């Protein structure tokens, strides 16, 4: 009986010691690949440049865009440009072996270009063809290309080496780009990119401004948001299919 009692005391001691440790050591086990940011000081410089560009040009243009054009027209413009990205999404989905999504994008493009009047109206979504976005950066990730260091691109914002390569490939290989280049209308590409940027900023005017105002380190916040969101896009799983904390546990 004494032996049992001693065993119990030792066990209790160990348990208490464990508890005492736990009390101060609840910690995060973060297995997500850490942000590789070896070029941080260079990136911070580009980030500062982008902020100036945003303050004096992009944000004022976005505000003007909001004032001049009513919400419905802005939505039509957004839909139009979004529709032009469907062929590239379809190609990338196919390259990733996701033929279902590839077909969905083709259907969306066909429906919205015809019934949706050149994409101004997104009729495909209401018919059950959900919008998705696949780019070449995601395709490279599917083929096992690592993201590489975090990279802030002038004017274009947060990226990684892999995603930047994906962007460049997108500029060259997107069927819409090829068609415009073929017709000698490459200027439309720059106009399209500019309008897209202004539209994105308009949609997120308060959100981005508020995010900056409530961030201790805005650069780190944006980097964190970009990498996490990108990671989720690459995993390509819907929110209810994935375990969001599988790599990020609180013990």
């Amino acid at each position: 009986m004494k032996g049992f009692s001693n065993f119990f005391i030792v066990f209790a001691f160990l348990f208490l010691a464990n508890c005492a440790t736990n009390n101060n050591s609840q910690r995060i086990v973060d297995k997500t690949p850490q942000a590789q940011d070896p070029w941080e000081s260079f990136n911070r410089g580009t980030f500062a440049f982008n902020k100036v560009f945003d303050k004096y040009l992009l944000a004022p243009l976005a505000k003007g865009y909001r004032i001049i054009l009513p919400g419905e027209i802005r939505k039509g413009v957004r839909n139009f440009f979004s529709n032009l990205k469907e062929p590239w999404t379809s190609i990338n989905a196919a390259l990733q072996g996701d033929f279902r999504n590839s077909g969905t994008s083709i259907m969306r493009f066909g429906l919205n270009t015809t019934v949706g009047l050149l994409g101004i109206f997104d009729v495909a979504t209401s018919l059950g063809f959900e919008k998705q976005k696949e780019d070449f950066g995601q395709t490279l990730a599917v083929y096992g290309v690592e993201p590489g260091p975090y990279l802030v691109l002038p004017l274009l914002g947060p990226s990684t080496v892999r995603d930047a390569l994906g962007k460049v490939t997108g500029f060259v290989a997107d069927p819409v780009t090829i068609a415009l280049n073929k017709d000698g209308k490459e200027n439309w590409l720059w106009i399209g990119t500019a309008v897209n940027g202004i539209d994105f900023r308009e949609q997120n005017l308060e959100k981005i401004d508020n995010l900056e105002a409530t961030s201790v380190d805005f650069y780190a916040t944006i980097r964190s948001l970009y990498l996490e969101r990108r990671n989720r896009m690459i995993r390509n799983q819907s929110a209810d299919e994935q375990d969001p904390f599988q790599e990020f546990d609180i013990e």
Partner: protein
Amino acid sequence: MRKIKIIFTLLMCLVINNALAINENDANQFVVDIGNQAIKILKIPVDDKDKRKKELQNLLQEKFDMPFIARIILGKEVFKNTSEEKFKKFSDIFEIHIVKIYSSQLGTYKGQKFTVKNTEIKKKDAFVYSSIESPDFPTTNIVWRVRDLGKGLKVIDMQVEGVSLLRTKRNDFKMVLDSQGIDGLIMTLESMNQLPDLKIPGDN
């Protein structure tokens, strides 16, 4: 008598330190209640900023384990070397900081519909999958991480479109914590909390 004391201590230890088992339906209902409370906040006129902030603070205090979140965000080393009093100060300031963030990001009510899809129990936590559907914006997916640390069900993290609140804030605070320590972080947050109210999205 000695044995009883040990058993009692053991039981206390279990109650204090271990997360309690969570029922799937309870976690589900818990998040539904949060959604309903959040929709009520969205419906408060944007001019009544104080009421919005007050209601949001109530929501955080009732449904989120803010001291636990604050502790995890500081990290093990910083927390270990911080006095209880200073941690309490940080925790209070951090709560005001979070209220400021969400009162400015929450937006206004424009027919959003909050739906809880399903709940999974993993280890000691419930992961509640939900979405906010809106006629004007793409659907937003939110995953709530819920744990019972003996204070009833509490949210310990939320992930909006794949982005974790905990991780974002840890990264946001890292540089100041590394260079100026918790005192520097407290000072920075204090001055940020003094800034005027921010413009609410959708308040055009």
